[in-house]
């Protein structure tokens, strides 16, 4: 019988590049912020349709990983593609990861 409980996630967002070349990382487990609908946020992102980055000088590069109990997803995208559902996911991770 399939597990009916929603998937739990460990999500990491790593930002590299930018003029400063500084690496920033934010990590969150879905249990850290149980009020957030993490499965919906993760599912909304177009993981499979991510185009390879075409580097724009000094723009950030984002590496996003969502490890669920049932599935691992991973994407690398340039700053200019961090819009819509990607932006919502990253913003939630950044705010939930704050101490």
């Amino acid at each position, binding site marked *: 019988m399939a597990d009916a409980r929603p998937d739990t996630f460990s999500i990491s967002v*790593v930002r*590299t*590049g*930018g*003029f*400063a*070349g*500084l*690496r920033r990382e934010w990590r969150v487990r879905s249990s850290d912020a149980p009020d957030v609908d993490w499965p919906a946020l993760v599912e909304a992102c177009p993981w499979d349709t991510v185009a390879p*980055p075409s*580097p*724009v*000088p*000094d*723009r*950030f*590069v984002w*590496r996003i990983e969502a490890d669920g109990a049932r599935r691992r997803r991973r994407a690398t995208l340039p*700053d200019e593609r961090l819009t819509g559902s990607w932006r919502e996911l990253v913003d939630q991770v950044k705010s939930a990861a704050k101490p």
Partner: protein
Amino acid sequence: MVHGIVPPYLLARIAELDDERFARAARAARRALQYDEPRRAARLNFSLDASDSLVIELADGPNRTIFDARRSETLPGVIVRKENAEPTGDPAADEAYDGLGATFALYSEVYDRNSIDGVGLPLDATVHYGVDYDNAFWDGDRMVFGDGDGEIFGRFTASLSVIGHELAHGVTQYTAALEYEGQSGALNESVSDVFGALVEQYSLEQNVEKASWLIGAGLFTDAVEGEALRSLKAPGTAYNDDVLGTDPQPAHMRDYVETDDDNGGVHINSGIPNHAFYLVAAALGGNAWERAGLVWYDTVLSPLAPRSTFAQFAEATVRAAATRYGEASTEVDAVRAGWAGVGVEAAGANLDGGRTA
């Protein structure tokens, strides 16, 4: 001597002057107008010659437009300052305007290059991009500056070297077109750091010894332990902070960082060619924008492969120095020694002596 910056409408008026006292200026203005699109601007230099006659010379001038994104991420934003307009009172917009002018001046006056593309491309910049946006970048058409988050970074227009860095990405795009990945990407970054530093040095009239050789001085808030983002003189020493960690830049090929992040570490490994430039400039002394800068400028304009390695770029600098100053010259020796000092062997070049394996 009086410097006036002439907008296109005035250029048109000078072109129509029917007065033989100004025949030369009128001819130059007509040439400038025919030569280029209507947005071109020019600079008039007025002086008196030995017989007290007024001499008017027409020179290239910048055509700047500053936009304000008003904290959105939509480009270009609304126009807040055009060429020749009075300061806005907004530090970000006015720093961007002045920084574009200082950058234009270095390329025009030292390298005889008229703007980014060499034929008077208008210089556009957008300030106040995004909310707490910790970055500045060149998007292929314009420079874009964030305000910083106020905790780690202040506004990105505060450092002239940053503005020079971004515009140099534009020059590279129109010339060497170094691919922004791996070693060629680190060279692309390094060229921007080198000319960003030179814009600042030329503007402040600082020679090799006086210059800070820092990139992004003044961007960090007081909360950060660090004076800048990068140092060409001493890569790896620009900051050392509890939160940010230590400046990760190597100064030697043996410390080259292999990574998938940051397009293959383009902002990290640029420390190696950056330091090579510093060593060349320090060996030659005087003003870095003169001999060392000329060799690097010639190199960027030479037929470089878009995926050039450090060694290939080094070879191109040796060739550029030999073409300009001769094979047996102080400049060629300094360039060879500079690359040897960071552990890069110029590909195909005959590196004589002084280099250890």
